[in-house]
């Protein structure tokens, strides 16, 4: 018998447009082996996890990756990623501070500190001691923070009940539009005229509204612009509750989206402080800096 077997048609590979770039970086100009104090901050967020190494009070390296379904594993994987890059072992790290939603589930952490305090401390390092107002646009929440010149929190407000104005909301729109998440910001400016914001209070409503706009003949870029505008209006209303001072700094993944950042700046009339450091690591960096301060005090005592 000469039966010809034909392969069953396979489903086309589903592209993950929402998937953002995971990053690992180490400062090759420094040698951690000669350091006196090495501390680590682990930020296990709802969407992303970061591990930051601080060597003698200076940023040395980091790893930023997607949070899995298990906080301890996410923390371990995030740290392992940066340790592998520089040949470090857990025993070489003197102090570990956990932060973020999963901070109490970091198995090797000596202390847990809230992400609010850590973001303020991290922003103070990244943006300098002139930073006073911090907007953290996280994966599933949004925080507005005021701090003093030392990065100590003086006022904060967060909203974690609603995904509007968060990274997750942007991921939903990215998938809906079938456009890679990193391209959303630039494409939101590729429009003929400004558009009105879509619903700014709910991602679910915003998604159905975006679908309605597409059906009504809006281009994808116009819909993205409407969503970026909605997100900007949403977070600005949060910021206005605590007041905005000069020295404005944005942390979190959405700080990398110019479509939202520029619109926030326009609404506030204030330009955000630029940084060369990945905005997503602010919480973990702050945690590592808290660890450094604690170790320094211990060493001085």
């Amino acid at each position: 018998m000469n039966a010809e077997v034909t392969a069953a048609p396979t489903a086309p590979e589903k592209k993950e447009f929402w998937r953002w770039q995971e990053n690992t970086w180490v400062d090759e100009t420094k040698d951690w082996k000669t350091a006196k104090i090495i501390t680590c901050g682990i930020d296990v967020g709802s969407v992303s996890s970061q591990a930051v190494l601080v060597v003698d009070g200076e940023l040395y390296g980091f790893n930023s990756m997607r949070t899995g379904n298990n906080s301890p594993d996410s923390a371990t994987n995030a740290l392992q990623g940066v340790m592998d890059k520089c040949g470090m072992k857990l025993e070489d790290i003197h102090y570990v501070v956990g932060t973020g939603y999963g901070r109490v589930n970091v198995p090797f952490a000596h202390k847990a500190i809230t992400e609010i305090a850590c973001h303020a401390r991290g922003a103070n390092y990244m943006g300098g001691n002139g930073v006073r107002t911090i907007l953290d646009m996280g994966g599933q929440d949004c925080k507005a923070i005021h701090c003093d010149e030392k990065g100590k929190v003086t006022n904060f407000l967060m909203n974690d009940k609603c995904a509007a104005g968060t990274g997750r909301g942007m991921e939903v729109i990215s998938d809906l539009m079938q456009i890679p998440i990193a391209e959303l910001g630039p494409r939101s400016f590729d429009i003929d005229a400004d558009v009105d914001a879509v619903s700014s209070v709910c991602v679910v409503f915003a998604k159905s509204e975006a679908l309605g706009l597409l059906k009504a003949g809006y281009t994808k870029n116009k819909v993205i612009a409407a969503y970026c505008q909605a997100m900007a209006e949403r977070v600005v209303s949060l910021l206005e509750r605590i007041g905005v001072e000069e020295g404005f700094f944005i942390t979190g993944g959405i700080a990398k989206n110019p479509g939202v950042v520029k619109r926030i700046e326009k609404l506030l009339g204030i330009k955000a402080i630029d940084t060369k450091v990945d905005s997503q690591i602010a919480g973990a960096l702050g945690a590592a800096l808290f660890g450094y301060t604690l170790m320094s005090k211990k060493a001085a005592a």
Partner: protein
Amino acid sequence: MIANYGYKDGSGEYYISIDTDKCIGCAAERACLTACPKQMFEIITDDYDDEVAWIKKPNCRTLSYDCADCKPSGGYTSLPCMTACTPGAIKHSW
């Protein structure tokens, strides 16, 4: 530090703010803990090692419902938590 606990959703803004500078070394002997009928307040050690009151996490997402009975429609003329907090550390946004 002014700590705002609560949320904003489609129906409005619901935040309880606690001025921790007034809360540290409470002059009202932590009266908020017993004044709140829903026992939403709790004393914690914050990130700066100060003992202060905060709102329990589960309540932070249900404030508009949890506090409804203490509002004028529930028969109160003033909020029990704010009345009990004589240093004036507690405020409601709505």
